[in-house]
């Protein structure tokens, strides 16, 4: 091996080591993305059907959902989180609509955007009846607004 070859190999070797270090450092950035979330479960029970009255929806503030109970059609669960910037919407019985306090978005009782900056309607979540008779909501399963759970009395 002559001087020039040795020099070239050295440069190549150093470049390889630096690249490896660079990739390793870049991979460490993944460290910032959490691997585990200590957050409330997406799938939870919300009590017995009898706990809910007919008519105006019931807000479960911790779960951030509205539970609708309809005389004939049954149960439906809507998200209470505004699709705009995440504030909790409020139900106004005066006009049968959801109003967002942050930026004035208004949603109809079907969750559709009636007014304001919200880019899309409120989400509806799947609600089923667990074996023990309680209602079970799964926030990871979004369903159409027409979805209803009919509970046998």
């Amino acid at each position, binding site marked *: 091996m002559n001087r020039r070859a040795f020099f070239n190999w050295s440069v190549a070797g150093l470049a390889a080591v630096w690249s490896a270090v660079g990739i390793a450092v870049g991979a460490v950035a993944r460290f910032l993305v959490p691997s585990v*979330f200590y957050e409330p479960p997406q799938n939870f029970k919300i009590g017995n059907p009898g706990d809910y009255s007919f008519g105006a929806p019931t807000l479960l503030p*911790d779960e951030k959902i509205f539970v609708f109970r309809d005389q004939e059609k049954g149960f439906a669960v809507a998200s209470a989180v505004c699709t705009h*910037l995440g504030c909790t919407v409020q139900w106004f019985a005066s006009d049968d609509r959801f109003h967002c306090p942050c930026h004035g978005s208004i949603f109809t009782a079907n969750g559709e955007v009636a007014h304001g900056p919200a880019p899309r309607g409120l989400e509806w979540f799947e609600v089923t009846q667990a074996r023990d008779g309680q209602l079970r909501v799964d926030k990871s399963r979004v369903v159409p607004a027409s979805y209803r759970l009919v509970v046998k009395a």
Partner: protein
Amino acid sequence: MISISEVYRSIVRRDPLSTEKGKAELVFLNLWLHIHPVKVKKENFRIRHTWYLGFITFYLFLILVGTGVALMFYYRPYPAQAYQDMKDLQFVVFMGSFLRNVHRWAAHGMVICVILHLCRVFYTASYKKPRQFNWVVGVVLLLLTLGLSFTGYLLPWDQLAFWAITVGTNIGGYAPLLGAKIKEVLLGGHNVAEGALIRFYVLHVVVLPALVVLFTMLHFWRIRKDGGLSRPVWKLEEETTTEGLVQIGSAAASPPRNESVSAASNDKTYGLMEVVTGSPLFETVATEQVDEEVFSFPFAFYREAIAFLITLVSVMAISLAWSAPLEEIANPAKTPNPAKAPWYFLGLQELVSHSAFVGGVLAPTLMVLLLLAVPYLDSNPSRRPAARKWAIWIFTAFMLVNFVLIIVGTYFRGPGWALTPPWVHVAGHE
């Protein structure tokens, strides 16, 4: 036996301050003072040239570091404790509420002073050659200041903090492609919860202050390298068209360079550091005294000390008169109505109330890019206000739009973000 004077001499090696050499050595033999030139132009320290806004911003930052470190002795960044610690600081800890007030008002003051400083630099055209890059550093410092304010806003963990940060981080979620990921990394989760609190805390007390210190050092260094504090040269140019001084380095382009003087060598530049009287360390260089220059000690230091004193006393007085607000404890289940971001982001919130993507991502990104590009977009070499009417009009309009948006967001938005004048009280909302 070592005498006291020997110990003193080992620490302070300069000549007595009664001599010119001592005054010069005070500056250039001292690590903390040598950011100053040994001599300054009297003209540069006139209040109406800079209003000392850069100094005041820096002093407020020092006050914020001091009070912030003090608050850290009591504050625990965990939702169950954070709010209780705020209450302790407010009612139990000796001087706790005073220190918190100083920290809060100094923070607001710093945001205001950074913005006013930006305006001053623009209106005096101080971003022009050779200071283009220092303007960019300044804009980065503005963004870091806003970042510090935003991360600090969450720490009290009250309703205001919680919902301001919920809205703020959801705006980040609208960024294209990476939006959801940015939000997840920023919050350490999907909601504003303990993960977000510790992340904001680390950003607030370590990461962002460290960046501010680094960029401030660069900012100050470049001021020195770019020719000292900026002054209205167009006024001076009217008085004397040619300055009888040798130009050093790649200095201003304005007066055409005399070829016989410039460039002894193409790859080296020489600088004469300072000329003082007294027995020399190296070699005697004689030059004519520039009469408008004075020693930094005491001329500049005195003025800086007064500016610091006024800053500190003002913040302390404000803190005695007004307390930093603290609402009820953060309640993720109940959004206050209206929920508002910190005032400096209310212009943004006003835009966001029309469209989250355009107002929350597109407009602020364009605004920042526009600010960063100012020295490169403005190709007009003149610093004379009369010769740059368009630049002044555009900048004034830009600032005015932001100002009006903030005023509307702050005072004219009521419950449900409805347009409500501040003198109208809407019943039935809290």
